[in-house]
C-alpha cells in the first residue's frame, strides 16, 4: 500500500472510447482534492479538447465502514454513526434511523415529539439547500451567494445548538421521541428565522434566477430524462426536476406530515436550471411547514413512556427502584429487537433516505444498510456530462447536490 501504483488505460478499456487507447483523446484526473467536486470525489475524464467524451467516477475515499461499525453497537449507540453519514443532513439521518428502530420494535412517538422532529428536519432541509445554493453559486463565480447563504445557515445551526448542544452532530432524535424538550427560547429563535427568511430568499432570487450569466451556464445543461433518472434510482429534487412528482412526505406521510399544507415543486426540463428552481422553491415550502408546525406545536411529553425502550426521566431515578432498574438495563444491555427485518424511508434534502434494519433478537442490529440518496444520484453523472464542456461538468456536479459522506458511508 505504501508504493505508488502504476495503472494503464487497459484497466478502463471497457469504459473509455477507442480513441483514448491511441492517445487521440486525453485522460484527465479531476479530484479527489478539487474544490468543485464537493468533497473527495475523483473523476477520470476523457477529453477531446474541452469536451467530455466519458467520465468515470471513482468513489470510496471517505469510506468509514459505518454499516459494519453499527453492527457492533446497541441500537441507541449506533445512532451517533448516522450523523456522520450525510453531514449536511444530520437531523434527517437521525430521523430515518430512529424511525426504522421504532418500526422494528413497534414503538409510539408522542405528538409533540413528532412536531418537533418535523420542525427540526425541515430547518435542516433549508440549511442543506443553503449550503448547496452557496457552493453551487461559488462554482459558477457568484461569490457573494456563498456568504449570504452561510449567514442564514448559521442562524439555523444556532437553533440546533440551542436544542441539542451541538451545531452539526446533533443526535437529538432518539428512539421513542427526542432527547429532551426544547428550551423556552426555541420558539422565538424559530420565529425570528421565519420572519427574516422569505425576504432573504427574494434576495437570492434577485441575484440568480433571472441573471443572464447564470442562465447561460444553467439552461439546457446536463439534461436527465425521467426514464433514465428512474432507472438509476435517482430521487429527491433531481427526480422532481425531471418531471416525476414523487415526494415521500406526500406519498407515504410520516411524523404527521399529512397535517401540513405544502406543495411539491416539480419541473419537467430536467436540466441544471430546473434542479436549481426545484430546490429554491423547496426553501419556501419548507419554511411554510416549519411555520405551521410551530403554530400548532402541541403540549405534552416528548418521549414515549414505554420504559422497556426509553430511559425514564432523571427525576424518577432517585425515587423509584423500577426506574433505576430500567435505566441500568437500557444503558448496559440495551433493548432487544425481534428477529426480523424492516425497510423504512424518509425524504431527505437529497432524496429517499432509506434504512434497512435487521434484528436477531438481541440488543445489537444484525445488519444495517443505509440507502443513501447521493450514491444513486451520482450514478448517472457519466450520462449527464457526455458532450458538455469541462466547465459545465462543474455546474452539473453542483446541481446533483452530492455529499461524499453520504455516498461512501
Amino acid at each position, binding site marked *: *500500500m*505504501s508504493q505508488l*501504483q502504476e495503472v494503464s488505460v487497459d484497466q478502463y478499456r*471497457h*469504459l473509455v472510447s477507442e480513441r483514448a487507447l491511441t492517445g487521440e483523446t486525453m485522460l484527465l484526473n479531476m479530484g479527489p482534492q478539487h474544490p468543485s467536486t464537493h468533497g473527495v470525489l475523483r473523476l477520470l475524464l476523457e477529453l477531446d479538447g474541452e469536451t467530455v467524451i466519458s467520465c468515470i467516477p471513482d*468513489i*470510496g475515499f471517505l*469510506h468509514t*465502514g459505518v*454499516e*459494519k*461499525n453499527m*453492527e*457492533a453497537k446497541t441500537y441507541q449507540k449506533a445512532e451517533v454513526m448516522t450523523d456522520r453519514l450525510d453531514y449536511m443532513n444530520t437531523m434527517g439521518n437521525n430521523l430515518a434511523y430512529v424511525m426504522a428502530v421504532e*418500526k*422494528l420494535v*413497534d414503538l409510539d412517538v408522542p405528538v409533540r415529539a413528532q412536531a418537533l422532529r418535523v420542525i427540526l428536519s425541515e430547518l435542516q432541509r433549508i440549511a442543506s439547500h443553503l449550503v448547496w445554493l452557496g457552493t453551487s453559486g461559488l462554482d459558477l463565480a457568484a461569490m457573494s451567494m456563498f456568504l449570504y447563504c452561510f449567514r442564514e445557515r448559521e442562524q439555523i445551526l444556532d437553533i440546533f445548538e440551542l436544542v441539542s448542544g451541538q451545531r452539526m452532530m446533533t443526535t437529538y432524535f432518539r428512539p421513542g421521541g427526542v432527547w429532551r424538550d426544547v428550551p423556552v427560547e426555541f420558539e422565538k429563535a424559530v420565529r425570528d428565522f421565519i420572519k427574516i427568511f422569505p425576504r432573504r430568499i427574494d434576495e437570492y432570487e434577485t441575484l440568480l434566477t433571472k441573471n443572464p450569466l447564470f442562465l447561460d451556464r444553467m439552461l439546457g445543461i446536463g439534461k436527465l430524462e425521467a426514464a*433514465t433518472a*428512474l*432507472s*438509476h*434510482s435517482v*430521487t429527491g429534487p433531481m427526480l422532481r426536476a425531471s418531471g*416525476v412528482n*414523487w415526494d415521500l412526505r406526500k*406519498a*407515504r406521510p410520516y411524523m404527521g406530515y399529512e397535517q401540513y399544507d405544502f406543495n411539491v415543486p416539480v419541473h419537467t426540463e430536467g436540466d441544471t436550471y430546473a434542479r436549481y428552481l426545484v430546490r429554491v422553491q423547496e426553501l419556501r415550502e419548507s419554511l411554510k411547514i416549519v411555520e405551521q408546525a410551530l403554530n400548532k406545536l402541541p403540549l405534552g411529553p416528548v418521549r414515549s413512556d414505554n420504559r422497556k425502550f426509553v430511559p425514564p426521566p432523571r427525576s424518577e431515578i432517585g425515587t423509584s427502584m423500577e426506574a433505576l432498574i430500567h435505566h441500568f438495563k437500557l444503558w448496559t444491555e440495551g433493548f432487544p429487537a425481534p428477529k*426480523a*427485518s*424492516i*425497510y423504512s*424511508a424518509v425524504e431527505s434534502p437529497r432524496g*429517499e433516505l*432509506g434504512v*434497512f434494519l*435487521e434484528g436477531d433478537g438481541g440488543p445489537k442490529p*444484525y*445488519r444495517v*444498510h443505509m*440507502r443513501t440518496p447521493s*450514491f*444513486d444520484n451520482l*450514478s*448517472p453523472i457519466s450520462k449527464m456530462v457526455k458532450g458538455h464542456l469541462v466547465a459545465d461538468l462543474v455546474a452539473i456536479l453542483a446541481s446533483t447536490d452530492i455529499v461524499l459522506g453520504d455516498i*461512501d*458511508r
Partner: protein
Amino acid sequence: MEAKLEPIVKTLQAKFGGSFEEFRGEVHYFIQPAQIVEALTLLRDQHQFELLSAQTAVDYWPQTSPRFHVIYQLSSLAQNITLQLRVPVNGDSPTVPTATGVFDSANWRERELLDMFGIQFEGHPDPRRILMPEDSDGHPLRKDYPLGYEEPQFTFNFEDIDLRKPYAKE
C-alpha cells in the same frame, strides 16, 4: 398485506413458486437466483415497480446454505406500494445473475455487494471494487471479517506497536 399487493404476490407465486414472509406490513418474497432477472423485469413492466429503492445483502455466517440473502427493495410510484425480493445464495462461490439489464442503478449497487460481501454478479459490465481500494483483501461486511481496531500506543510500548502496525513506514 395491502390489497394492491395481493394480486401481485399471487402472480409471482403462480409463475415462480416460492414463499413470502410478512412483517409490519412489509412483504418479503423469496425467489431463486436463476429467476431474479425475469421477476424484476415482470415487476417493472407489468406491475409498475419503476424504482429499485435499495439493493443490499445480509450475511448469515456460520450458516452456509444459504449463507447470504441478496435483497431487492422495489417501489412502485404509480401504485405507492413496496415489495422486497430476497434471493438466498450459498456460501461457496456465491453467484447471482446481474440486474443491470433491468435497472441501471444495479450497476453500482452490485459493485458494492461484490466489494463488501464478495458476491459475484454474472454478466456485470464493470465488476470492480467500488468503495475499498482495488488492492485490499477480503470483504468487510462479511460476518467472518473481524471489526478492526487499533492498539493504543503509550510511551512505554510505542515502538513495539509501531513495528507491527500495518501502515506506511517511510
